[in-house]
């Protein structure tokens, strides 16, 4: 069955060349056609009462007639308000009378005419008469003739087409019944200018053209005719010019060719005269079967071209037909993915056709060109059930949807993302929409499954544009910032100094040009891009850090040292120091290679980063006090207390460097060692004024001894300190008083202090605060890295959710920088369940066959289509089932190990193709 569901609706068009030979769009060609058989055709089709075979400007005449009609309608002025009325049953379709004062509503169990009055709808006529409701009255569609106020047609779900004449005197207005369709009729359509021509499209795949003066169809168009047609003609032995003739000929041949069928054929009643039958081979005909024809969803006569109509199909195709040529369509193209539910010709622009489909799109096609060209595409949020051009507004159309969404939207096709207007009255899906008057753009009528009929006024519509936030803001990968806003807003702003923004990202203001838009004033916006200064303030440090940090696989001390080194090399001294501190806190001193110590401290002050106090001494003091008492009670009172306090301050200081430098700890330490002030010391944290312990110890008492700076910090020296249970006052003094840029001062002290066997648990709170500090600073990298490196040691102190949050933020960042490997490592090392399952999802890798380039759906190494093993190892010539590595240059490859080994010895491709492969 032709093309089923082709995936893209790019308008792949199948042009039939022979068809074009007979028909071009120029009136001259039309005349050429009509010379052959126009006189026969005209009365049969009943297209016009004039003998148009002789009329030299037939098309013009039709147009003239039409324009006269429309202007005749244009006179009255409509008034009314937004209103609705309740129907007894769900509506399936509505149609408006040409006088714009009546509307007909049809559904499964309703068929009524309402008069549209100023304030309300008034039921005027119930066409559903008779005791027992017949299925003929279960309407799928209804249409009111635009020329004749008394003429209506309905399509019934059981496949019957009924016409109604309101002029009949009896109560039953039913006029004619056409039972030619075998399945539900989806659509009926009157010719815009001819009084007697009716077109129907059905689920059975046929379109039929009826002349209301006859009791059966005049011609039948098959959705499949393009497939079956040519072969049938060939069988009949002639290529007919006109359907009327061809039909006769064909029927004869058909009967002769199939002797046994002759009886059946002859018993066929007159209804069989429909021209479609011969085109559609019966089951017993020999030869290939014509595919099942696709269901017709909509048929619409062109408003501008007299003979043309469009039909849409369930398989996504749209066909254009010439009413005189039922054998094949003029052109066919795939418009949508999935069924095309509706179409509408533009009332003014010749050849513009709007189509709406199940794929939630409305497309506008230009049919005047050689190939149907998609001009606009509007993406809606649900399947499009109906589409109607808005009168007098060239680019506006109204749509309603098949499911889920109950609103009616009016779109400006040039602005496909935001509806121009929206009507929200209905509570269930809207099934029918109609503009009340062909020249009045402000009145829209709609019927719905919620059993109501509405008149919407355009001025009462809600306008989503007004609610939309017209500003947009987005960060680019490299820190660029794009900002779009209404032009008026930006213009007002431009007088001022450009926003300077974050000082870490120096920026400049750049106006980009506004893409030419038809919505000048309304929707035009200005796009500004703020770029980061090249080289400055980038995120280089982040990438480097992420790549070079070691997170696992080595002892903790080494990890800390390594990471500290990395941080320092990148100039992030504070971070480096933190790492060092962590090592000191968590690694047993006996195991620490002391040699590393001397270069492990850098002063935060020198790195120039803005620093904050995440916690201050106030918070810490009480805690320290109690600890101190505890220790004291154990007996090794004095030195322990001292050590404790100084290490605590040390840590404080670490985050606090900028304030006082290293003097404070030194003060503590020395003061303590020198005795006497002991009580003060102990009381101090406990009692009232822990605010600023610094002022308790006068700094002046200990002159700075700058000469120490030059002292080379030998390992022995430190070792000594570490070994001695009591730190001598002088040594401590020397160390801690070292000026700011001393490389080892603090550390040596703290290392020495560490000897006191303080449980690392004690620092849990501090480390936790430290992690929070970094995370809040925006350096989630540090937080996560520490979390991973320290593992169990701190995890329990931080609640699961926070951890998870950090992990996901960090992973997100890493992925933005395309650091896939690092991000995967982090995922792997994480202990949070939610995070570690991140790399369990979407682990499928799709590969294409290297021979036929088709995707290999089942297994990665055998192609279903060409039945060959796709991935052969170029080295060992066996199938690769595991890791396959290949060169992106020549696409040869093989087992990972084999290729690695090969490329160690040779730089050429192992397949011998001469390519210089590179393994990286």
């Amino acid at each position: 069955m032709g093309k089923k569901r082709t995936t893209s609706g790019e308008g792949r068009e199948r042009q039939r060349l022979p068809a074009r030979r007979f028909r071009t769009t120029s009136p001259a060609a039309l005349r050429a056609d009509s010379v052959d058989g126009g006189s026969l055709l005209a009365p049969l089709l009943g297209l016009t009462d004039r003998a148009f075979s002789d009329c030299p400007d037939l098309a013009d005449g039709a147009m003239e007639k039409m324009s006269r009609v429309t202007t005749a309608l244009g006179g009255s002025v409509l008034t009314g308000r937004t209103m609705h009325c309740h129907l007894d049953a769900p509506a399936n379709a509505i149609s408006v009378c040409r006088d714009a004062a009546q509307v007909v509503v049809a559904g499964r169990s309703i068929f009524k005419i309402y008069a549209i009055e100023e304030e309300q709808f008034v039921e005027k006529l119930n066409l559903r008469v008779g005791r027992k409701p017949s299925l003929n009255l279960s309407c799928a569609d209804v249409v009111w003739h635009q020329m004749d106020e008394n003429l209506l047609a309905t399509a019934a779900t059981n496949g019957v087409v009924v016409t109604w004449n309101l002029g009949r005197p009896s109560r039953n207005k039913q006029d004619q019944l056409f039972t030619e369709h075998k399945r539900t009729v989806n659509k009926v359509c009157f010719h815009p200018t001819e009084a007697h021509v009716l077109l129907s499209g059905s689920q059975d795949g046929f379109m039929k053209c009826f002349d209301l003066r006859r009791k059966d169809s005049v011609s039948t168009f098959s959705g499949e005719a393009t497939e079956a047609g040519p072969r049938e003609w060939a069988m009949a032995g002639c290529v007919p010019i006109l359907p009327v003739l061809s039909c006769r000929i064909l029927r004869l041949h058909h009967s002769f060719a199939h002797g046994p069928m002759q009886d059946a054929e002859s018993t066929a009643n007159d209804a069989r005269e429909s021209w479609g039958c011969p085109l559609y081979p019966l089951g017993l005909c020999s030869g290939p079967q014509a595919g099942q024809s696709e269901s017709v969803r909509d048929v619409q006569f062109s408003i501008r071209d007299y003979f043309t109509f469009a039909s849409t199909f369930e398989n996504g195709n749209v066909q254009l037909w010439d009413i005189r040529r039922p054998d094949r369509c003029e052109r066919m193209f795939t418009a949508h993915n999935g069924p095309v539910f509706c179409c509408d010709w533009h009332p003014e622009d010749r050849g513009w056709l709007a189509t709406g489909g199940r794929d939630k799109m409305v497309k506008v096609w230009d049919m005047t060109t050689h190939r149907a060209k998609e001009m606009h595409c509007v993406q809606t949020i649900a399947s499009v059930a109906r589409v109607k051009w808005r009168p007098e507004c060239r680019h506006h159309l109204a749509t309603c949807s098949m499911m889920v969404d109950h609103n009616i939207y009016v779109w400006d096709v040039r602005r496909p993302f935001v509806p121009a207007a929206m009507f929200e009255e209905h509570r269930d899906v809207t099934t029918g929409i109609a503009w009340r008057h062909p020249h009045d753009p402000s009145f829209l009528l709609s019927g719905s499954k919620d059993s109501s009929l509405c008149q919407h006024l355009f001025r009462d519509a809600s306008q989503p544009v007004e609610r939309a936030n017209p500003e947009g803001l987005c960060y680019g990968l490299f820190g660029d910032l794009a900002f779009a806003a209404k032009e008026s807003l930006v213009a007002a702003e431009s007088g001022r100094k450009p926003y300077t923004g974050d000082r870490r990202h120096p920026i400049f203001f750049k106006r980009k040009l506004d893409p030419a838009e038809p919505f000048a004033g309304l929707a035009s916006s200005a796009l500004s891009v703020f770029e980061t200064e090249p080289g400055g303030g980038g995120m280089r440090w982040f990438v480097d850090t992420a790549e070079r940090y070691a997170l696992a696989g080595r002892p903790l001390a080494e990890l800390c040292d390594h990471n500290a080194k990395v941080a320092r090399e990148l100039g992030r001294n504070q971070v480096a120091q933190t790492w060092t501190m962590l090592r000191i806190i968590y690694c047993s001193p006996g195991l620490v290679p002391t040699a590393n110590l001397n270069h492990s401290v850098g002063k935060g002050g020198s790195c120039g980063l803005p620093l904050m106090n995440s916690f201050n001494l106030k918070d810490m003091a009480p805690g320290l006090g109690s600890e101190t008492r505890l220790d004291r009670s154990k007996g090794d009172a004095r030195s322990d207390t001292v050590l404790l306090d100084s290490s605590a301050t040390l840590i404080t200081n670490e985050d606090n460097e900028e304030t006082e430098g290293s003097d404070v700890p030194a003060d503590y330490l020395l003061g303590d060692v020198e005795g006497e002030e002991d009580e003060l010391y102990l009381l101090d944290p406990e009692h009232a004024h822990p605010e600023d312990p610094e002022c308790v110890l006068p700094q002046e008492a200990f002159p700075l001894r700058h000469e120490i700076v030059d002292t080379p910090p030998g390992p022995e020296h430190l070792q000594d300190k570490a070994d001695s249970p009591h730190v001598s006052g002088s040594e401590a003094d020397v160390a801690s008083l070292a000026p700011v840029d001393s490389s080892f001062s603090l550390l040596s002290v703290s290392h020495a202090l560490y000897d006191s066997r303080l449980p690392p648990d004690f620092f849990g709170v501090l480390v936790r605060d430290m992690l929070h500090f970094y995370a809040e600073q925006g350096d989630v990298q540090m937080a996560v890295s520490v979390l991973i490196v320290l593992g169990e040691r701190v995890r329990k102190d931080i609640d699961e959710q926070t951890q998870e949050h950090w992990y996901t933020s960090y992973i997100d960042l890493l992925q933005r920088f395309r650091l896939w490997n690092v991000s995967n490592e982090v995922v792997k090392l994480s202990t949070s369940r939610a995070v570690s399952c991140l790399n369990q999802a979407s682990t499928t890798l799709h590969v294409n066959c290297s021979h036929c380039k088709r995707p290999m759906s089942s297994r990665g190494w055998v192609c279903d289509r060409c039945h060959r093993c796709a991935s052969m190892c170029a080295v060992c010539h066996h199938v690769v089932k595991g890791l396959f590595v290949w060169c992106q240059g020549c696409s040869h490859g093989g087992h990972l190990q084999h290729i690695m080994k090969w490329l160690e010895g040779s730089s050429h491709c192992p397949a011998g193709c001469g390519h210089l492969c590179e393994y990286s």
Partner: protein
Amino acid sequence: MIVADSECRAELKDYLRFAPGGVGDSGPGEEQRESRARRGPRGPSAFIPVEEVLREGAESLEQHLGLEALMSSGRVDNLAVVMGLHPDYFTSFWRLHYLLLHTDGPLASSWRHYIAIMVSLSGPDTWRGGFVAAARHQCSYLVGSHMAEFLQTGGDPEWLLGLHRAPEKLRKLSEINKLLAHRPWLITKEHIQALLKTGEHTWSLAELIQALVLLTHCHSLSSFVFGCGILPEGDADGSPAPQAPTPPSEQSSPPSRDPLNNSGGFESARDVEALMERMQQLQESLLRDEGTSQEEMESRFELEKSESLLVTPSADILEPSPHPDMLCFVEDPTFGYEDFTRRGAQAPPTFRAQDYTWEDHGYSLIQRLYPEGGQLLDEKFQAAYSLTYNTIAMHSGVDTSVLRRAIWNYIHCVFGIRYDDYDYGEVNQLLERNLKVYIKTVACYPEKTTRRMYNLFWRHFRHSEKVHVNLLLLEARMQAALLYALRAITRYMT
């Protein structure tokens, strides 16, 4: 990666060794085959001789399903072998099956298998691993495989002890499971509401849709399993196969009734001719006399509906007593299919197909909530509905669309769905009574399907054509249940 290729080939060879005659059609060969077929179920199906399956399906097996089915299961199971008779359909079936059970989706993997177990147990279908399934459809064939998968995907073994051990959220599904399996027309928006209303054990809409698709998929799959008499996976060495699904009736089926072997072949061959003639006439719309009044058409549907009451499988067929192992998954085990129109009872309103079609409404809804599923379902329905080889029994070049449509619409009719544009008189003209009995049984009480029923209808047709009927059954049943469920969701949403 699965390295099951060789294994599968070996298995195939195993089957082939079993069929020495191969393609031969000679008399003695047939006898042998037949006797073998009766001796004990061997091969994929209890109804279809193994040679038949292999002869017709061998190439397609190798080309299509061998690879696709292997992908996930590591072996070609009996279901795949039988369904592989129609490779075009099987491809789309498999895609959906895979999507539902193995691809990322709103529901956790283990949950999906658990739901499948619930279904299979609660529906009409399964026997595997030696125990007769006895839950909703009692399909142990499906249960066994899903149990293994359930555990593999990290399911809690506790749950397998019974539905009462499963989380509340899953238990809430059992009501709708029951309805979908037997009387889908009873599903209302209140059922949906109950599942979706905010609370502790709430379903999200996306989860629910996947669950519903999965439920209907498994229900209809169990129809297929029973309809084709798919045997549980035996071991390759032919160890005693688990209990055949239809022991009681098998004895009662006289050997002469076996297809292709029927001495009364002439008679049934005439049936085929007659059927074809009627089809042809219908196609030319000769039988559709213009005189038929609308009332007449109306009554024909009612007639068909009420007539379907009569084609209930005879009550004397032994009702398999539910296996206790499976009962633990079933709540209200006595709940079963009840005829849509029962005499005297107030029938629920007929579902008008035109008011809620799959193409327009069902698809649009699913597409919104479960996009991948919607696409594949659509393709699968299409594949099943339009599948044809233009053959009927020994004739080829036949347009079978009338016949297929009659079967499809009859199944929908049994579930209370009516097409306005269909003349239900056609069903009567095209479907013989035995076929109707079979269809009704497989669609509504699959567990009662017997080999006799299978043999009785379409005696002159090929097995692959009978499998084709089963495919139509599967899809029509699934679509019917899905339509009811989706309509309820739509009503809930509006």
